[in-house]
Structure formats: structure tokens, C-alpha cells
């Protein structure tokens, strides 16, 4: 589905972001921190913002696109209000993480990497959250759910609806 970025609605955020660019544009290798800030502020990288970065840092849009598509944390679609990061590392995998992911996908009706149309939830599959002793594990925003079982999922998601 199509997500539209409304510049007027985000006026203040854009201003805040422009100040960040101004403060950081002269440090070497500024592109990554600037894009990370944009991702943080807007929840994704709207085309309008990429064009702004291109103008301010004097880097061609094509190059910015190349960097943005290389790293999995940058997204061209909005992330939902609640970001579910499910760990698919080795320890979680041998303890059944695939089944957990499948259940979350079924419950929300979207696939990994997707956002629900009401912008409530996003599912991100991460390579390892570094909580291997709690496998299988996933996080919703900053809450960690350790040693989860398939049947727990529905109740957990209910808390964020």
C-alpha cells in the first residue's frame, strides 16, 4: 500500500532535522548519522527527506539511495507505532523462532518487513538481538519477551492493540 508523507504536518520535525544536519554536515562520514536521525525522527525515509539530505550534504540522490538500500535498518515505508523485532539468530532458531514469527504474521495479517495499514504494528526480523540465553525472544518497542511460546503471542499482542 501507498503511504503519503505530509510535509505540512511534519513541519516542526523537519525543522528539528534541519538543525541536526547543520550541526553535523561538516564531520567526515556524516551521511549515515544524518540518515539514522531521519529514520529516528520520521520513522522511515520519505522521498522528500532524502531529497533534502541530498541538497544539504551535496551528495547525489542516487548515492544516498545506494546507501539506504544497503542497510536493513533503513526503511522506505513507515514503521508502525509498535515495532516488533523478532530474533532469528541461531539459538532462537533451534528453539523454534520460525514458529513464533509465523504466529505473529498470522495474528497481524502482514509478513516480515511489513506494516499494518492502520500503522499500529511493524514486524522486523533481526539476525540476533543478543539475548541468546532467553531464546526464543522478541521485543516490542523496548519490552523484551523471553522464552516465548506460540500460544503466548495472542495475549502479548493484545496489550498493544
Amino acid at each position, binding site marked *: 500500500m501507498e503511504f503519503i508523507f505530509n510535509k505540512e504536518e511534519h513541519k516542526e520535525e523537519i525543522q528539528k532535522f534541519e538543525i541536526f544536519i547543520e550541526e553535523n554536515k561538516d564531520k567526515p562520514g556524516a*551521511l*549515515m548519522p544524518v*540518515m*539514522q536521525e531521519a529514520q529516528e525522527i520520521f520513522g522511515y525515509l520519505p522521498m522528500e527527506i532524502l531529497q533534502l539530505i541530498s541538497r544539504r550534504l551535496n551528495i547525489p540522490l542516487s548515492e544516498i539511495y*545506494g546507501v539506504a538500500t544497503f542497510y536493513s535498518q533503513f526503511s522506505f515505508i513507515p514503521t508502525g507505532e509498535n515495532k516488533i523485532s523478532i530474533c532469528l539468530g*541461531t*539459538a*532462537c532458531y533451534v528453539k523454534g523462532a520460525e514458529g513464533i514469527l509465523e504466529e505473529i504474521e498470522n495474528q497481524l495479517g502482514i509478513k516480515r518487513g511489513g506494516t499494518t495499514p492502520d500503522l499500529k504494528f511493524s514486524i522486523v526480523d533481526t539476525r*540476533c538481538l*543478543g539475548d541468546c540465553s532467553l531464546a526464543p525472544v522478541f521485543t516490542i518497542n523496548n519490552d523484551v519477551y523471553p522464552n516465548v511460546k506460540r500460544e503466548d503471542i495472542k495475549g502479548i499482542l493484545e496489550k498493544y492493540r
Partner: protein
Amino acid sequence: MISLEILEDIKGKVRPELENRLRKEDKYIIDGDEIGLKDEYYQKQTRIALKNCDIIDPKNIEEYIAMDGYSSLGKIVTTMKPKEVIDIVKESGLRGRGGAGFPTGRKWETAYEYDADKKYVICNADEGDPGAFMDRSILEKDPHAVLEAMAISGYAIGSDQGFIYVRAEYPVAVQRLKLAIEQAKELGVLGNNIFGTDFNFDIELRLGAGAFVCGEGTALMESIEGKRGMPRTKIYRTAHRGLWQKPTIINNVETFANIPVIFQKGVDWYRSIGTEKSPGTKVFALVGKVQRADLVEVPMGMSLREIIYELGGGVPDGKRFKAVQTGGPSGGCIPEELLDTPVDFESLGKIGSIMGSGGMVVMDEDDCMVDIAKFFLDFTVDESCGKCVPCREGTKRMLEILERITEGNGKEDDIDKMEKLAETINSASLCGLGQTASNPVLSTLKYFRDEYEAHIKDKRCPAGSCSELLRYFITDKCIGCTKCKKVCPVSCISGKVKEIHIIDEDICIKCGACADACPTNAIIRK
């Protein structure tokens, strides 16, 4: 301005407070200068890189100082020449804990020898190996140890700028590091004229953005420079031309965490731990199918068996041990008969695995080795940056073969094909990711070949894990309760109430819902 006297004052004031706080809980042993964790579990370990973890408050620089923190840096910059510092690191025999085991002192020496207007120190905190989390723990629980070590290496090679490249997936580590850098600057152990000398050193945090390959040194440098994180062709060592083409040393978090302790306790003490060629300790993330999944730090040379059974408590639920996977996607699966192998860089290499960053995932009889190989190849295909053909195309072809084997469509010559592919990928890839990408396949082929053959020839998964190859049967334990019939999503179960039910295998999608619903465990999978 900070001085050794001020450090002593802080220690004198804070140490008793810290000890008092620890005495209130029955979790610690305080023996003269040494403070350790009490449990028998910790007594079996030797904690150097983790020595302050779970003891000090990581948000308080003074508690780090109370544990002799920053005294090594103070001593070094006020009394030692850079060359002397490098010689001590060389003599200690410390080797890179990020995976390859390159001698740290030699790396520093190379960077020291090149003259340049600018040099850099990088801490590689892009801990990407799935199943490893020691770096995260050190950064979260003892961040100052890393900062102190980076300043020491900066002094040794003549650098005034450090970068910590940390994974964005570790938000707590990022927070702690930010705070630690702030506190260190405020106290004057980072910044200009450290300990009243003309040595300046600053540290900047850079966040990763979710690319595994950025753990590779040159890819990481490209990423700091603001580009796609793709490895460089290695014409020069990074100690010669690294970040922005300047001499750069890059060390892993755990490697750095060893440095201040080596200078506090001396080379002889350090070399008395571990083995001749791999001195010191290694932290392992002992996880997967073990009773106690946790970080353990043990002297190099301890056997896999001791680590898994004495520290991890063995495999839970009465299941049989099958393999231990070390070294993440670059490592291999080690079978039961090799569990007496001592853990050091050389021994693990000889049996087709690697030390890697220290992930140690234990697997039991329910884990299919072909499926595990497929899991790692899926990872590599996803994370391959695409710069070189052998890695980009070769790993993809290998994954396709593994997929068809696990789906029951394997061909007779598939094993040969994979072995040939592996040879090409290993020898022709540009960076370590590609050069080691086939290790999970090669090691499982070497030790668990019969599992591959069962998949290919008999269309059977001995571990009962590959769903496409599974067959479900209802045994005569069936009481005819009809529960299975009700949950079956494709209605392939037939039978009357109180009679034994039957599964129509042609329609069955092998979802397992019936087995989960059965109250008498009458449904078995083979």
C-alpha cells in the same frame, strides 16, 4: 586535571563504599584486592574480560576506578614510551577475540611504524554473529574498560581519534557508552592533555544500521565513511591504510577489555592462563539446548565437553547431544566424538570449525544438521553484500541445493556439487564472509554425511525436523476422541467416534496440529 593521585583518592573513597554495598548481598566474594562472584558456577570460570561485569555500576565511572580502572592508562601515558606499550602487548600473546586470532601487538606495531598526520583506533562492536552476545555484555556492564583500552592503544600507535562502531540493535549498550564517554571526558581521562601530558584522545560513537558484513574490518571502515558497507580489495593492511586511507587499528570489544588488566597484572600473570599459543581466556555464549544458557569465560584450552557439561549442565529434557556449533555462520558443527577437543584458535580450525567471536550453540537429537546448514546459508545469502561473484552467486546456488534436499527433491550428485561449489567460494571470495560461508555445509557433510544421504536417498529426515519429509501416523493408542479431526486444517483425518482414526497422507500438509491436539500422544511423526 586528572592525575594518578586523584585516581588513588577516588579509589580510596569509593572502594569501601562499593565493598559495603556488595557485602549486603550474599552474591560476592571479597578477598583482599579481588572481588568476584560467589556462585560455584563462577568459581569454575576465570573472569578477565568480564571481571567487572555484574559487580560495578556501569553508569558510575568512580566504581570503575575503585576496581583500579584508568590506573593502567595513567601509568602508561606518564611513564612509558609507545614502543614499550606495544612490546608488552606483544609479549602478552593477546590475540584478536573477534574471530581470526591475529596477534594484537603485531597489529599495533604495524600502525605505529607508519608515519602519518592522522591515525585512527576503531573498536569493532558490530557483534553480528547470531548466538554471540559477549560484546554487548561488556559494553553494557563495563564500558569504561573499552574506553581505557582504546586510549591506551591510541597512545601506543600515535592516534588522537577513536571510533566505536556499535550495532544499532544494542540500544542499552549505546546509551551506556554515551554516558561513559561523557563521564570520561568530564574527568579528563579522555580529551586533551590526558594526565597532564601532551597526549590527546577523543572517542566518537558510530551506529551500525543492520548489515552483518560491516563486522568485517574494511567494510566497517567504508560504513564509517558514510558509504555502502562493502569490503575492500585488500591491497594494503588496514594498519597501513585504513579509515580514510590512514593507518588504523581495529580491535574487537573483548580484545580491548583484556588490555587494561594485562597492564595491571603483568605479562607473566597473563601468560600463565590459557595455552602457549593462545594465552588468556575466551568468553563464550553457551546457548541453545543446554541447562544453563549464559556467558562463560574460561581459560583457552579447556575442552568443549567441560564447557558444555560442567558449566552448561548438558542437554536438558533427557535428550541426546548431537552437535555444538561454534563460530557462527563462518564456523562448523562439532560432533560428540570430538568434544574433548581443547578450545583454542588452532584446535578448532583443525576440526573444520573456528573460534569465531565465541558463539557456542548446543544442538540435540531433534535438530537436523542439513536444516542447520540451510539456516546458515540462508543467513549468508541474505547478508552477502554482492560485491564479488563467488559469494553472491555461489552461496545462492548452494542454498538452492540445500532447499531441495530438505524438501525431498535432492539429487544423487548434490553432495559432490556442493563440495565443488564450496571450494570455489572459499578460494575466490573477496572477504572472510565468503571465504568461510561454506564451513557450516562442509563440517556437517564431514561429520553428519549420513543425514544428508538419508534426505537424498531415502527422502527421510532422521531428526524429524524437515516438515516436507515428515509422515504422520496414528497408532493404536488412539481413543477416537476426534480432537485431531477437528483441528486438521485440510480435513485429511477420518474415523468414527471411539474408533482409531486414519490420516490420508496424500492430503496431509504436515502442519503437526493433530499431534499437538492429541491427548494420548497417539500421533507420531517419522
